[in-house]
């Protein structure tokens, strides 16, 4: 029985949240829905951890859905690369579940809270599905599952502007999803199959046809939209700003990363690096766009007054780092991209959690609203400082590991200008994080503002500080993480298997 379950793990991570979501709706009350969400998130995280260990040992875990052998049935494939992304997504969901209870109770009407938990589970299901599936069309389906869930989650934000930003995201997201679907359609036309490994094999004869090239273009643009790669990022700042805080935490830490993961998966596993980077100039295009993302995102972040929006713009910049690593198409570059995917998840998760706690206390989070909070919410503000240092890339934090690996990947190929761009973007991060920290610690609350006191609830702090501790742990013991991501990158490139 136990062994049976063990074999079913790859499908359980998808099925459990999918089935638990309607349970939340049936439960109809905030507390039971939260309990279901929390329990499922942690179970799925546990399973993901086992899968991660399994891929470390075995390299690959394959599961034929419904017993239908691939390429006819849908296949779930978890290799070292997807295992790490899976761990990030489920881990963030587990920590967000701890955080969500108090935060959602404060931001949303009581009778709608259960819907948030249901939608978050659906979103989790979609993201996990995208990560583990080995089937191109299936990936599109899960992308839509996660997207639809995110639209509704963002729309539930406390202010009315959430509706508009959700609508904006809906339009952009639908365009992205449709592009992806068209691209997959082109591939299906040329190969007659939807299984990724199978497509890859059959593409070899027809790789240089215009249909396949157009398919690649559609897929890249579609997924770049979901990944908020410059200049397709317009939906992101509003979406992150007006969503409920716990939704911002979860989506900011996971959803764009899974989109980049899908992009990497398509380019390396389906099309092959030769077609994308040698025959077509994907690398050059992405390098230019990612540098533009880093600089414009960081610059825009400097001029924001709303701290959530500031962090959102910083996310646009940080996606640039990840895509830059990927665009190098080298082992070191992919290692850097994957490392930063994980680390940025940890960083932004911690930062959004800290800001969410400030919002919980002040019901607002512009730079002026949070002035002088350093004394009144010492733990939350300290968490923000550590998260901010990690974002800057301070040694001893996760961000430093990312920066080191990325700089190394760039410099080893003599991309000096790109390295300089990264450093400039980090320095811009010093400015925007510095502005917030200065307001937290060295400014007095504005006259006439009610002075709210007291720390955030314990569970929120526990979740925040778990992420902060992970940031520090990764920063100090980064060798283990880089080893894992390097192996994952190698497995993706088909080296050393």
């Amino acid at each position, binding site marked *: 029985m136990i062994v049976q379950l063990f074999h079913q793990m790859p499908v359980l991570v998808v099925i459990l949240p999918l089935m638990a979501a309607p349970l939340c709706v049936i439960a109809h009350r905030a507390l039971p829905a939260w309990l279901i969400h929390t329990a499922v998130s942690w179970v799925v995280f546990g399973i993901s951890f086992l899968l991660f260990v399994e891929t470390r040992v075995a390299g690959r875990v394959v599961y034929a859905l419904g017993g239908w052998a691939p390429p006819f049935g849908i296949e779930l494939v978890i290799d070292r690369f997807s295992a790490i992304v899976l761990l990030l997504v489920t881990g963030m969901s587990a920590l967000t579940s701890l955080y969500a209870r108090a935060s959602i109770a404060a931001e949303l009407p009581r009778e709608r809270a259960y819907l948030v938990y249901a939608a978050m589970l659906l979103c989790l299901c979609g993201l996990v599905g995208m990560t583990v599936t080995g089937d191109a069309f299936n990936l599109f389906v899960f992308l839509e599952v996660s997207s639809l869930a995110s639209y509704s989650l963002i729309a539930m934000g406390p202010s009315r502007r959430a509706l508009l930003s959700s609508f904006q995201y809906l339009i952009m997201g639908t365009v992205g999803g449709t592009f992806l679907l068209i691209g997959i359609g082109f591939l299906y036309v040329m190969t007659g199959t939807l299984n990724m490994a199978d497509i890859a094999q059959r593409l070899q004869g027809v790789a240089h046809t215009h249909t396949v090239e157009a398919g690649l273009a559609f897929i890249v643009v579609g997924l770049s939209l979901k990944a908020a790669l410059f200049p397709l990022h317009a939906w992101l700042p509003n979406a992150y700003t007006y969503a409920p805080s716990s939704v911002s935490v979860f989506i900011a830490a996971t959803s764009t990363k899974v989109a980049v993961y899908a992009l990497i998966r398509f380019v390396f596993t389906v099309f092959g690096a030769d077609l994308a980077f040698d025959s077509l100039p994907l690398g050059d295009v992405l390098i230019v766009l990612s540098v533009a993302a880093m600089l414009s995102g960081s610059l825009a972040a400097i001029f924001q007054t709303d701290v959530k929006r500031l962090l959102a713009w910083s996310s646009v910049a940080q996606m640039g780092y990840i895509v830059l690593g990927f665009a190098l198409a080298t082992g070191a570059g992919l290692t850097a991209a994957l490392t930063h995917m994980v680390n940025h998840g940890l960083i932004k998760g911690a930062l959004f959690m800290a800001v969410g706690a400030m919002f919980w206390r002040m019901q607002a989070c512009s730079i002026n609203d949070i002035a002088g909070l350093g004394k009144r919410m010492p733990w939350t503000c300290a968490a923000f400082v550590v998260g901010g240092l990690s974002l800057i890339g301070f*040694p001893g934090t996760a961000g430093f590991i990312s*920066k080191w690996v990325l700089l190394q990947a760039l410099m080893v190929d003599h991309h000096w200008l790109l390295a300089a761009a990264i450093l400039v973007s980090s320095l811009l991060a010093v400015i925007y994080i510095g502005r917030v920290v200065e307001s937290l610690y*060295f400014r007095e609350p504005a006259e006439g503002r009610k002075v709210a006191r007291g720390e955030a609830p314990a569970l929120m702090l526990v979740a925040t500080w778990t992420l902060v501790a992970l940031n520090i742990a990764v920063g100090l013991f980064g060798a283990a993480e880089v080893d894992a991501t390097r192996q994952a990158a190698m497995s993706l490139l088909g080296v050393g298997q």
Partner: protein
Amino acid sequence: MNPLWLLALVVWPAVMSLAVAATGRWPNIRETVSVATGVALLAGVVGLIEPIAAGERPSLTLFEILPGLGFTFTLEPLGLIFALVASALWPLTTIYGAGYMRGNDEHAQTRFFVCFALAISAAIGIAMAGNLLTLFVFYEMMTLVTYPLVTHHGDAESRAGGRIYLGILLTTSIGLFLPAIVITWLFAGTLTFTHGGILAGTGLTALGAIALYTLFVYGIGKAAVMPFHRWLPSAMVAPTPVSALLHAVAVVKAGVFSVLKITVYIFGLDFAFKTGATEIILWTSSITIIAASVIALYCDNLKKRLAYSTVGQLSYIVLGSALATKLGAVSGSLHIVTHAFGKITLFFCAGAIYTAAHRKYISQLNGLGRSMPFTFGAFTIASLSLIGLPPMGGAWSKWYLMSGSAGVEEYALLGVLAVSTLLNIVYLLDIPARAFFLPADDDTPRGFSEAPLACVLPLCVTAAGCIALFFFAYPIISFISSALGEGA
């Protein structure tokens, strides 16, 4: 000797900062804890002299930060010298700080002493770092924990000062120092401080070596080579004990110590000399020496004048490193010690003057020497030491620097040193001369009115140290020479 000692000494002040924080409510106990921690630290570091002198090089790797890059502590003579200076001056500064902070009724004294202890922890970490990455970790930690000390007053002026402080130090370290470390790692495949350097024979060209060395020295903003020196005058908004220990000893010396260590153990003196890697820095540091001295002439604010004097003096040490010879390195390390004692005395005096007479500007000091004889006596001794006159310790470091410059036949450098010495005389001795010989202003206090004993005692001790260093320089020199190996 057990290498765990190294870890214990690095962690000790940080751990005890918790005790300082816990005893914050009882100032007397808090300061006793601080001083006791400092004395214990000093005893621990002194205990290391013997094994290191006997040739031991204890090393300890705790874990790997990045694949192949450990969090490593290794102690060698240069590091020990820096650790000794920092830990010897810390308890004195704590006593002084207690007198100053209470004498001026400063707020947030507990935060002040906690950050102080953490800064010392970072300094010891820098001294004992076994590779560049570990050094970088502590270097950045030091920037961070000293920031609250710079912005201590919390008003607009200190916030602006803090912004410049953090801005320049982080910009240089992230923008220049970090890439220099990564480049070193890519060329050498290691970052371990190794006798004779790690860059020789790695395919780094002479031009590359020049670029890399320049990147390093400017990346280490704490060494304050112009044009990245602005943070140091800005940091003078801090309370004077901070300026004394951190911005005359721990922070700035961490900078020049890093430069020295990189010259000796990353480039290696031979490699640096052969490739001429230090060529640019040789001249930029010379320019800094002169320019900073000239600016100091025109500063009426006493602490600001001392800050610019520090900028100039730091470049002596950078210049010593950049000579890339054994004599140069010896003069640099010796100057770390002598300048530390001299400059901390001067800052102590500045703080004592402020506490006793509330004077910040040099033009207000006329005739004050008669009512504060100890303070201005110490000031004179320390000034003479910085100028390099016997029988003060500073004479030796200037002597070695000059003979080092002559040794590589850079006679223009001798000219630079001569001119800067003259400038030193003008801008430093001007101050005690005013205090002792000019007629007093109307509102200058008559009779004996020194600062509290807790302030005056430490500055007498450090002034005595300036003299003592003249007589005890030889053991230090031979100790440093043993680190650099035979020949020059």
